[in-house]
């Protein structure tokens, strides 16, 4: 199963109401698009840089970052969500356990 990003169609809401899905708007390689069923998809897994821009941008965390099988034969995945001045990462290990990181990503006006 070649993977770079995995989009969970059960979670993806297609960013309905927007001219383009947020992942489609942001992908630096122009790889994401919205299918006719209004679910996001990636057009070419082999062109993905695994930069995680779409993972961070997705407001419902429908997108996971994974590695291509040739780089690692065990499954692991990574999700992120942006919360104000922090980015919160969750890493799922191959054995199922997870690790969370909360990292400052922006200085709010008062701190500058």
């Amino acid at each position, binding site marked *: 199963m*070649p993977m*770079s990003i995995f989009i969970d169609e059960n979670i993806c809401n297609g960013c309905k109401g927007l001219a*383009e899905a947020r992942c489609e*708007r*942001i*992908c*630096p*390689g*122009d790889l994401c698009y919205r299918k006719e069923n209004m679910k996001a998809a990636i*057009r070419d*897994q*082999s*062109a*993905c*840089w*695994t*930069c*995680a*821009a779409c993972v*961070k*941008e997705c407001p419902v965390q429908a997108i996971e*970052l*994974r*590695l*291509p*099988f*040739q*780089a*690692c*034969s*065990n*499954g*692991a*995945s*990574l999700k*992120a969500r*942006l919360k104000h001045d922090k*980015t919160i*990462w969750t*890493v*799922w*290990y*191959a*054995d199922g356990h997870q*690790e969370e*990181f909360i*990292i*400052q*990503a*922006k*200085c*709010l006006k008062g701190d*500058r």
Partner: protein
Amino acid sequence: MSIIRIDTDILIIGGGAAGCFAAVEIHKKSPDCKVVIMEKAHIERSGCLAMGLNAINAYIHSGQTPESYVSYVEKQFVGIIRKDLVYGIAQGLNEAVRDVEKMGLPIDKNDDGTYKKRGERSIRIFGERLKPLLAEAVQKTPAQILNRVVATNFIYDGERVCGAFGYGVRNSTFYVVRAKAVIVATGGASGIYKPNNPGVARHLMWYCPWNVGTGYAMGIRIGAEMTSFENRFIALRVKDVHAPTGTIAVGAHSKQINARGEDYLERYYKHIGGNKCLTQHRLLATIEETKAGRGPCYLDTTTLSESDERRLKEDFLNMNPQIVLLWAGKGMNPRNKPVEIHGTEPFVVGGHCQAGYWIDKERNTTVKGLYAAGEVAGGAPKKYVSGSWVEARIATATALEDIKDVSLGDIDDSIIQIEKNRVLSPLNKKSGVSPLEMRERLQKIMDEYAGGISMNYVIHEERLLEARRLLKCLKERIKDMTAVNNYNLVEALECVDRIDVARVLVEHLIYRKETRWSCYQPRLDYPEKKDERWLVFVNSIYNPDTDEIKMVERPLCQ
């Protein structure tokens, strides 16, 4: 096919680190100046900084000076750098960093508010959102941002650059942007050589795969003088995911060890300070150890404490999340197992090495009306992101001064038609060469005949001459390229640009008949460094009428 015509004062091509900073800078200096940014992707997450950044590697700490910075860069590049350019950058580094901090970038600080020293010339940042922060600063200015518009060529009347053409992939529209001045601020070139990972993992690479040298190629095609393409950059990176090793070596003080656990940099470079050797030596020694049967080589992360390890993972999430994923997939922690390293494919860049436009101190290129900043500007290696900001500042000052007596040029409709037809021609063909076939052929030629990974990066005359011949043949097939949609068309245009860059690169590699930069430019037929002959810049000028690349030498300046 509709055409959108836009007139502006200054056009910035490439909305990356340099391009965004330039737009903000112009607004600060001259609020009435009209600015357009032409950006291939979306400025909030495009180019090198799309993943984020965890350190700024060009910064002057207390006790150091611009002079000491120049000496350091000169030593790293074995005597060939443009000292005037590097000095100008060094003078502006700290101010530029402070400006970006004010945009909201979190920086690791001491209790007294000064930036914490990470390495001799670096500071630690929390730059996961560096690119969105730069974009936010641009979005506060009235600059017009053309996202998803791929620059295809400069508008050039033979004397002066008067704008640029672009193709909008979302609206299938051809853009004609006239400007009094154009600042080229695009990235370097990846995908010239066969990458480390094949097939579905082909883009699991260090450098941004959509930086394909378009800014170089556009300049080459109008005869702008280019410098030092032969100073390729080959990075020492974490195997498979190609995350930077500096985060571990500098950020976490880990040593390079071979399969036997020996600190091999100490063995090779004891005479020049062991682990304090040049950046290129770290790679060279790794290649030698592997050849000698003492590989794989690693960064020894087993000395890290639990909190060091957590900090390391945080740093990588800010810049290269896929390495954290790799460790999770392998079920390993770097504290328990050293991290394997190897060399990447060669890249053509002006931020780590010095390939790019030949410019003067004011960032004028050799073509009137065209200014260069950041990765595409040559002669000033190790400028990285902060140096790119400084160059953007200098280039905007020059451009603003220059446009005072300039009016917009007239563009003949026939020129627009010719460029539009060239750009769109792959869409109008039913069969032919696909962009994928074209890219793979280019990468194979470069890998095998111009010193790629499979050749351990080495080059010599006979193979390079074959590369020259094969690239010329390949260029003749560009007219047969096909594309089925806009995405595919961009891939086709990327091939055109990469081939132009590759041909110039090969001429530079042929011309420098010495080995100046050990593994970046290792010539089997001229293995020695010859200061008496080659302490010069190797430059090139392409002639679009004859399709010839003329090589010229320029002296070092003091």
